[in-house]
Each structure stands twice: as structure tokens, then as C-alpha cells.
């Protein structure tokens, strides 16, 4: 880890230049880091009080650079391209039984299941209300059972149609 404030500041400068080169609107750029700002300030404060302000500066710069760089990559790269990178990065793990293209497929299924969960939650709540039950932790159990059943159905449908999740993802 780099412990020199000057080097870190230079690195941060390079990242800022990257934002400029990508023509990211400054408001959007600031927001990338802004979300984490309260955390950052607290860390710097605690660090400064406990370890001294020199070390607080280094820690603050280090985290700020990391956040800015990550924000830049996320902003300038489409999610699909990132999924591709993830699939390629996971390729060396193939001998361990990891199937990168399947992970891409699972990500797509996950995105699809979010609204399904919402629908199921509404249905379970309606059913319980019809029986005079308001707000109960028992709510979670029928929701999970219902959703697991849906997952079974989805898997059967995919299998019946001969869709291999891996191959389907690759044909995109």
C-alpha cells in the first residue's frame, strides 16, 4: 500500500484528469464520491484523533482515490461490458468448476426475480389480509415458499425447452 501523501495526491490528479477526458459532467463526478463522503470524513476524523493528522491525510487520500477511480470505471463502462469482463476474469477458475457464462445468466435471472418477489409479496399480503392477519413475520415464510416454487417452474420451463443457461448467455 502506498503511504506517501504526495504520490497519492498525484494518483488522484490522474484520476481527475480521467474524469475530464471522459467528459463526465462534474455534478455526476462529485456524486460518485459524495455518497461515501460521510464515511470518509468519519474515518479521517477517527484516524486523526487516534493516529495523528498526517496519517489521516494519507488514509483519506487513499480511500478518495480508490472511490474516484472506481466511480470513473463504473460511469464510463456499460454493465454488459462489465459482465463480459467478469466472465473473462472468472475463466481461469474453470478447472475449479466455475462456469463463467452461467454466472452471467444468473445475474440476468436475479434482475428478473426482483419484480417477481414484489408481486408475490403483494399476493401474500392480500391473502393474509383476507384472513384478517395484519403485518406478521409469518409473512416471510409463504413468500419464500411461493418464490422457490416459481424458481422450480422457471427451471423446468428452461429445461423443457432445452435451454442451457450457459449457452443461452453466450449467444447474446
Amino acid at each position, binding site marked *: 500500500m502506498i503511504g506517501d501523501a504526495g504520490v497519492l495526491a498525484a494518483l488522484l490528479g490522474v484520476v481527475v484528469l480521467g474524469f475530464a477526458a471522459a467528459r463526465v459532467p462534474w455534478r455526476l463526478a462529485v456524486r460518485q464520491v459524495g455518497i461515501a463522503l460521510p464515511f470518509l470524513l468519519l*474515518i479521517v476524523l477517527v*484516524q486523526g484523533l487516534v493516529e495523528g493528522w498526517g496519517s489521516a491525510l494519507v488514509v483519506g487520500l487513499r480511500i478518495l482515490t480508490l472511490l474516484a477511480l472506481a466511480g470513473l470505471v463504473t460511469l464510463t463502462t456499460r454493465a454488459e461490458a462489465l*459482465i463480459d469482463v467478469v466472465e473473462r476474469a472468472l475463466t481461469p477458475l474453470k478447472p475449479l468448476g466455475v462456469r463463467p457464462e452461467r*454466472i452471467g445468466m444468473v445475474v440476468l*435471472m436475479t434482475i428478473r426475480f426482483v419484480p417477481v418477489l414484489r408481486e408475490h409479496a403483494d399476493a401474500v399480503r392480500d391473502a393474509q389480509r383476507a384472513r384478517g392477519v395484519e403485518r406478521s*413475520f409469518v409473512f416471510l415464510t409463504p413468500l*419464500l415458499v411461493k418464490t422457490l416454487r416459481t424458481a422450480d417452474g422457471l*427451471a423446468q420451463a428452461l429445461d423443457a425447452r432445452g435451454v442451457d443457461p450457459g449457452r443461452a448467455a453466450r449467444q447474446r
Partner: protein
Amino acid sequence: MRTRDLAYVAVFAAIMVVLGLFPPIAVGPIPITAQSMGVMLAGSIIGARRGALAMLVVALMAAIGLPVLSGGRGGIGVVLGPTGGYIAGWIVGAFVVGLITERVWTRYNIGWAILANVVGGILVVYAFGIAWYAILSGQSVVLAAAQNAVFLPGDAIKVLIASAVAVAVRRAYPVIEAAPQRA
């Protein structure tokens, strides 16, 4: 892994996303979220491998910038940032919860459920979270652990809810038993 296993993985990854929609309560630098309950549920209901995979999918989605973490956060910055250790802890935590659950599956009850969720969902997740936070902030482990203590009451409640639900779901729709050990 069969198609069905992948579908289960997607379900619990989606549950993590939905739990992340509940607004986090910010106490100090690490938000209290409903998502740690998703870690426990995943391990308890779909077991070690699929549970860990569900958490991995969430971590990947967060890393590529999708807003899947509590409060609509996402991006490599969050995954590698001060709270990133907790996200790594979710993967290992769900695996440990699942491992314990699978070992005691035939005599699974609320007691075993609580044990599994405390060990995997609290101890393992905290260990990763605290270690990474300490490394990144340069603070001592003790100091980082002390800041972590605010989570204990909330997590205790989450353990109780997740355990009760896991026992009920096992009775209604047992997944771990029905699943093949290897695909």
C-alpha cells in the same frame, strides 16, 4: 449445478437486492441494513454452495455498478471501500451457515438454526468486515471491532427472524434435502 440450482441462486440474490431497498440506518460509517438477514436465509434455506454463490452474484452485481446494496449503493468503490469486507463476509458467511445447516439437516430445529446463523451470519461476517475496515482505515482491530458493536442488537433480532423462517420453510418446502449433492 442444475438449472434449478441456478434459479434458487437467483432467487436469493434477488432477495438480497430487495432487502437492500429497505433504507439503511446510518450509525457511524457502516450502515445497518436488512441485508445481513438475506445472508442467513440463503445459507439456511439453499445451503452452503448455492447460498455462497447467491452472495457472490450480489457482490458481482454491486461491483459492476448495479445499485444492489442498501440505499441504492453499488460500484467497485463500495465493494472495495471501507465496508467491502462485509460483502466478502457475506459470501463466506452464507457458506458457513449452509455448511452447519447441512450437517444437522435431519435434526434441524430452531436451536440449530440460531447456532448456524450466529456463527456464519454474525461471527464470520463481522470477522471479514472488521479485518478489512481495520486494514483500510489503519485503525486497530479493537477500535474497528468497537465500532462494530452497534450492530449486535439489530443482528440478534435478524438471527431470530431468519431462524424461525428457515425452520418453517424447511417444513413446508425443504430445498437442501431435495437437492442433489453434486450436479
